[in-house]
């Protein structure tokens, strides 16, 4: 079976290894697993105030109720601050929270932890806790947060492990800074045209259908075993150890199947509470967030207002981009500094061919709403909405085709990208994405505005995007490959398949490396005791970073197997050929299969038939993408209907076309949701109006039109089999492309999302 497609290797659209279990509803998620005997139900009492101090808290009545095992308040928890952000240590997110704090910083901030024999008893205990609050003035508008006299973090023990992030809690700043290259002001002054506007994206929610949830127990060795719906087992281990003040060696973290993550579970939202209960009581504990809790106290996208100042010449040359990003991290600083960086680093480099100077300044502010976190796109989504909208406006002002303006200015393979830490565009087919997308979509036919007989207006818009493939020089991926009895392999990884299919695509790479059928590969994911270290599945890292580790581990294992084969075949190991999972002598007269070799390895053998490799890369090669949308706008009702969405993606080599395609479709659908109707309103009391899925509307299958995804791959030398990433980039084009199409239909630019029908019908956008 030499054909990679036949064996289910790279390029094959094979089913996910867990597909049939998932489609038949097998009990594979956290809350489906058997509970350890005597498992306590954990519930959190949450703050009704946006900013308040606990004056008094009395738990005596609660704790004396039948079935209540424990009630904890801020008086019971360790006093060392930590962050829940799943990032490599030392985290760039400030250490600004306690398990429970006397100071409550948003509606939904935990006031007390209750552990009871069952849910009913836990609910009764919650109701029986008596709290007196001293409400404080709250900071609810992020535009007024910086230097506001009301402080979200007045405490003295706030600290940052990375002072370069520029945080200053006395100014409500989680992070702040400036970078750039060239004399932006001078270049802007010499431009024919400058486009300058603020663009506003709200704190939309990931809404993984499985809410945050964690189960904990003490194992036979007295260690804390944590099973959690998480993307980041190793970071969770460290975060729990920090929060509880216990050795990391005392903690083991595993993930079962995960019901969606999208970045939400790159923050340890639920883990610490049951872990604390188990550590204190010695009893198993489980916490399952309600949907309301997940919406009110989760880890949504950072609300941002990005002011773009884009300078160009009359011939369409884009010469300077000046970006100011104001980001709202909410009550705590999870991912605050990291996300804001992407607003510039993943937007400005798109125009590397022509941009002579850029500046990027940012403030990440604390406010009294829930903490933000990581949501697919991670700042790039907000930045690309701003910059791509400005470029579309530039095209319109110049009377140029927005496709032409992009072909003229876009980044090309081989260029160095100053706004991307001077990393090289080592693999880039953005030009191919543009031309292929235009052709497949029918840009020429669909771009002109067409009024239909019923008065509805058909129009089109476009945008391009980039992302990264892991965090340059930081993210670590590892893989352990073990030869098994029948000549198959077990692949151990610390990356987290959350529906992305990474277990399968990593196995596909291994199948190619070992030239064996995919069925012969078993994958075991994400257990800190068993998996080799991996930063986790985020930052579009798994295919690129961990994938390369799989290839390296396979090579190393082959070397070890070669030694055994040489002994068995009585030949010089250098001369052996490896094909089809079998070693051959140079003259092909004798051979030993991996199965035979596996048997031999258990008999008088001293060569380990397993190998672990670790990979990290100094650069983060960007995938590129172009999206074009045709919409139909109803001028009467203001409804914007998606008709067709065409995407062309350069994610390097496509490991599994079917899975890459659904990743792209999924990202586009989420992008459509945040553009047209996913909305967030905080009341004057700091309460979130959209705290159920009755109010927070995510797209149904009737809201998305027809999606078409194609690939225009480049080849990334540093990636496994030439692959880059695809997980995040796919959410970035809908907002600017749809806003562009709506402008074409209405003559108005909508610079605040979502673009709801009432805004369109009442002309609440801005005229050009």
């Amino acid at each position: 079976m030499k054909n990679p497609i036949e064996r289910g290797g790279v390029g094959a659209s094979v089913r996910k290894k867990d597909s049939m279990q998932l489609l038949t509803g097998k009990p594979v998620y956290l809350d489906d697993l058997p509970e350890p005997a005597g498992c306590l139900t954990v519930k959190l009492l949450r703050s009704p105030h946006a900013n308040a101090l606990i004056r008094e808290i009395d738990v005596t009545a609660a704790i004396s109720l039948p079935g209540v095992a424990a009630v904890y308040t801020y008086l019971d928890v360790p006093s060392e601050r930590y962050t829940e952000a799943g990032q490599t240590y030392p985290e760039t997110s400030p250490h600004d929270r306690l398990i429970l704090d006397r100071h409550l910083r948003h509606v939904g901030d935990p006031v007390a932890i209750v552990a009871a024999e069952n849910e009913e008893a836990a609910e009764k205990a919650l109701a029986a806790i008596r709290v007196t609050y001293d409400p404080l003035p709250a900071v609810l508008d992020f535009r007024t947060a910086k230097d506001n006299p009301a402080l979200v973090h007045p405490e003295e023990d706030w600290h940052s492990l990375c002072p370069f992030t520029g945080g200053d809690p006395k100014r409500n700043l989680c992070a702040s800074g400036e970078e750039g290259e060239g004399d932006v002001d001078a270049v802007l002054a010499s431009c024919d045209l400058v486009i300058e506007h603020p663009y506003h994206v709200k704190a939309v929610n990931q809404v993984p259908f499985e809410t945050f949830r964690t189960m904990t127990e003490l194992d036979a060795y007295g260690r804390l075993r944590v099973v959690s719906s998480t993307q980041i087992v190793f970071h969770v281990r460290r975060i729990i150890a920090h929060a509880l003040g216990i050795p990391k060696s005392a903690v083991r973290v595993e993930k079962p199947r995960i019901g969606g993550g999208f970045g939400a579970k790159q923050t340890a939202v639920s883990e610490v509470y049951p872990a604390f209960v188990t550590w204190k009581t010695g009893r198993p504990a489980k916490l399952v967030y309600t949907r309301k809790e997940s919406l009110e106290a989760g880890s949504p996208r950072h609300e941002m207002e990005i002011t773009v100042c884009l300078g160009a010449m009359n011939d369409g040359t884009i010469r300077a981009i000046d970006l100011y990003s104001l980001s709202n991290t909410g009550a705590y600083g999870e991912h605050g500094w990291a996300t804001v960086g992407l607003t510039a680093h993943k937007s400005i480099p798109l125009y590397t061919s022509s941009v002579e100077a850029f500046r990027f300044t940012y403030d990440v502010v604390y406010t009294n709403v829930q903490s933000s976190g990581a949501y697919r796109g991670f700042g790039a989504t907000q930045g690309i909405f701003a910059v791509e909208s400005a470029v579309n406006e530039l095209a319109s002002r110049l009377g140029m085709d927005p496709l032409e303006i992009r072909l003229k200015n876009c980044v090309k393979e081989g260029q160095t990208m100053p706004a991307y830490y001077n990393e090289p565009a080592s693999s880039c087919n953005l030009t191919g994405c543009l031309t292929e997308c235009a052709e497949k979509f029918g840009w020429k036919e669909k771009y002109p505005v067409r009024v239909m007989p019923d008065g509805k207006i058909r129009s089109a818009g476009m945008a391009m995007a980039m992302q990264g493939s892991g965090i340059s020089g930081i993210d670590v991926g590892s893989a352990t490959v073990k030869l098994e009895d029948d000549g198959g392999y077990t692949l151990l990884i610390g990356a987290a398949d959350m529906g992305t299919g990474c277990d399968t695509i990593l196995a596909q790479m291994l199948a190619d490396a070992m030239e064996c059928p995919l069925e012969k590969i078993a994958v075991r994911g994400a257990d800190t005791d068993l998996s080799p270290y991996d930063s986790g599945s985020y930052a579009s890292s798994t295919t690129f970073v961990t994938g390369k580790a799989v290839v390296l581990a396979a090579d190393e294992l082959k070397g070890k197997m070669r030694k055994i084969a040489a002994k068995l075949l009585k030949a010089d190991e250098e001369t052996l050929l490896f094909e089809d999972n079998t070693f051959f002598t140079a003259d092909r007269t004798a051979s030993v299969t991996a199965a035979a070799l596996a048997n031999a390895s258990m008999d008088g053998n001293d060569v380990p038939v397993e190998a672990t490799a670790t990979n990290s890369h100094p650069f983060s090669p960007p995938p590129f993408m172009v999206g074009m949308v045709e919409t139909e706008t109803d001028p009467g009702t203001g409804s914007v209907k998606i008709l067709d969405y065409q995407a062309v993606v350069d994610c390097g080599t496509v490991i599994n076309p079917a899975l890459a395609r659904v990743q792209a479709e999924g990202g586009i659908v989420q992008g459509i949701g945040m553009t047209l109707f996913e909305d967030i309103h905080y009341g004057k009391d700091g309460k979130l109006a959209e705290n159920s899925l009755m109010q927070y509307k995510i797209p149904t299958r009737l809201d998305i039109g027809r999606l078409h995804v194609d690939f225009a791959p480049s080849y990334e030398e540093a990636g496994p089999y030439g692959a880059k990433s695809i997980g995040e980039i796919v959410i970035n084009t809908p907002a600017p492309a749809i806003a562009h199409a709506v402008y074409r239909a209405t003559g108005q630019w909508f610079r605040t999302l979502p673009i709801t029908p009432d805004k369109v019908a009442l002309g609440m956008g801005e005229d050009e």
Partner: protein
Amino acid sequence: MNFKNYVQPETVSEALSLAKQSGTVILGGMMWLNLQKRTVETAVDLSRLGLDRIESTPDGIRIGAYVTLRQAETDPTLVDYTRGAVGKALAPIVGVQFRNTATVGGSVFGRFGFSDPTTLFTALGASVVLAERGVIPMETFIREGAPRDLLTHILLPKEKPDAVSVFAQRNSATDFPALTSAFCLRGENLRVTVSPAPVRGETREFPFSDAEKIPEALANGLKFDSNRLASAAYRARLTGVFASRALEEMKKGV
């Protein structure tokens, strides 16, 4: 919402006496346990009262309160009577599974400003049958409600409309409507019900010959309010737009 007892009365009078007791709640087709934090003594389930039929009677069409939205949406008599409008009005409500348990009675009894079935039935000239108060026009019911009474049927007048149009505006396909409206033409009489949540529905009648004036009369004559889904100004605009579209449809059809 939590409750300690669950009863399934076999007769309407039994159900009515339960409804009159304090501490009881009548369940429509479904229950949202998580939307309200309160505890009641007894929940009353109406599924055994035989109110799950749609019947043609000499006086018109009689729809049992326990008829599901899905039943109504696909019922040939109702589809014919409403000239297909019932399907168009009810299909966007959440999903088939929801409409398989949500009942007509539950939708109407709540008097929600966003109710598509209530809006349609009101425009059709429906009456409601209450176990205690008897038959009253739907508009009166919407205005006044009938606390501690029991809705058993909805009656549609015998005369089949000449044309029916329904229009609703949703920000996404299965969201609550920002506004829902229904237009029913019998001879020269055009009966219009507009339900602009959060305000309850209002009904107006016009001579069809006044068609040109109707959109403006409705947009200017009804009360609108703003909420999270849309502004009052937008709802006023929608009312005019939908009225124009309904009239256009009717002119084409008539």
